[in-house]
């Protein structure tokens, strides 16, 4: 065993927890090496002195009682916290809370909040009149679709439609209370369509006009069943919610008009039902 190994085993030797062979080697080395012997003996002396002079002290009664008292207080606080919760959710409060929650749940279930996403009107068929109306309106507002004729006099618009083979539009209602008009004519699946843009104040209203027969009975265009039913029953149809515009469809003589506007729905209805 080397001096370093002896130093490493010093503690074990002091504690007497040595196995036979190592113990023998350890003490053999000590008998030959004065330096290691000194180290071992001095450490033994230090250990013995500490053991003799400084004893383990058992917890005095008053200290034990003090700690146990503090713990009991801590336990009591925990219980108090629980009983506070108990009171809060106790016999009176809990049923009221449950009742309130049930009422809220029922209200939520039976009174749908507006605007509701599920009630937004979605038109995807490309030959759907309302789909085309909305698509054109977006393009007009974004400046992608520009009217062929612009005028301040409704008569100019009527004459434009007449000249371009849209007599049905020329006979339909052209609203007078307007700052200026834009008009254009197009064709979809062999069906002639008339388009009018009304600028009134800050509002823009776009009216899509087609022969009633083509819209309701023809093969090129289609109408949502709800619109067909409303037109048959009341002569007017308002589309469900749109985020930024309102849609009204009505018939005038042999013409079907579909209007979309930035106006509020009641204002739009009043606008399109002008005599």
């Amino acid at each position, binding site marked *: 065993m080397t001096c370093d190994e002896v*130093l*490493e085993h*010093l*503690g074990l030797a002091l*504690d007497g927890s040595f196995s036979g062979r190592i113990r023998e080697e350890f003490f053999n080395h000590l008998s030959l090496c004065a330096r290691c012997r*000194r180290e071992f*003996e*001095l*450490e*033994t*002396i*230090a*250990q*013995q*002195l*500490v*053991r*003799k*002079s*400084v*004893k*383990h*002290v*058992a*917890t*005095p009664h008053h*200290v*034990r009682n*003090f*700690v*146990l008292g*503090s*713990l009991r207080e*801590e*336990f009591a606080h*925990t*219980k108090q916290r*629980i009983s506070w*919760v*108990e009171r809060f*959710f*106790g016999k009176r409060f*809990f049923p009221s809370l449950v009742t309130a929650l049930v009422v809220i749940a029922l209200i939520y279930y039976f009174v749908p909040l507006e605007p509701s996403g599920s009630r937004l009107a979605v038109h995807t068929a490309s030959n759907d009149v309302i789909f085309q109306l909305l698509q054109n309106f977006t393009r007009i507002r974004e400046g992608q679709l520009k009217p062929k004729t612009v005028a301040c006099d409704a008569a100019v618009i009527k004459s434009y439609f007449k000249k371009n083979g849209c007599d049905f539009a020329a006979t339909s209602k052209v609203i007078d209370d307007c700052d200026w008009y834009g008009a254009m004519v197009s064709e979809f699946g062999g069906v002639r369509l008339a388009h009018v843009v009304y600028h009134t104040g800050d509002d823009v209203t776009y009216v899509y006009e087609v022969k009633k027969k083509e819209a309701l009975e023809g093969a090129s265009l289609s109408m949502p069943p709800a619109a067909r039913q409303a037109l048959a029953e009341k002569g007017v149809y308002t589309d469900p919610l749109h985020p930024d515009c309102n849609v009204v469809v009505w018939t005038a003589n042999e013409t079907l008009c579909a209007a979309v506007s930035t106006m509020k729905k009641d204002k739009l209805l009043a606008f399109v039902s002008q005599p």
Partner: protein
Amino acid sequence: MMPILLATLTRATKQRHKEFEAEALPHMDILYSFALRTAGNEDDAKDLLQETYLKAYRFWDGYEKGTNIRAWLFRIMKNSYINRYRKETREPNTVDYSDVENFYDSIRAESTDTNDLQEKIFGGLLGDQVTKALEGLPEDFRTVVILCDIEGLTYEEIAEFIDRPIGTVRSRLHRGRKLLQTELFEYAKQRGIIPRDEKFSD
């Protein structure tokens, strides 16, 4: 449903108290004894013990059942002590151990056993002086000396207590005892047990 939950909660809390008492309270003696040797007086030891138990109860859910609870409680106490007294974990000053060695060498030939040597080197020192010397040791060294020589813990258990490898325990113990010897030797000189001006032979 809520009353049932509350009843369960209350039962669980009672169970928690019982568990804590059964597991943690039996180790109060070793904690107090250590607190006393670390804090140096009964009042501070009492406060340290109280703080340790209150913290242990509050963090009882964090104790992993089946692991060494003594070591867990001890670590709480150690942290509380550090926080409370803000003692710096300083490195010990380099001490001149040669005086002790020289004196030992000079008297070794006349002595037959360690008891005799002890008497010659440190004889007449009061227990208080040993205690004071022990308390004067840097914290890391004092801790292992207390745990090993006063509380009689094994190296393995001390390693678990201080969360260090056994090699560290061994070296700290060795170093701690040496520091203690030097300190005690100084006391012995001051008390005139060893002549102050004596020149020791090599």
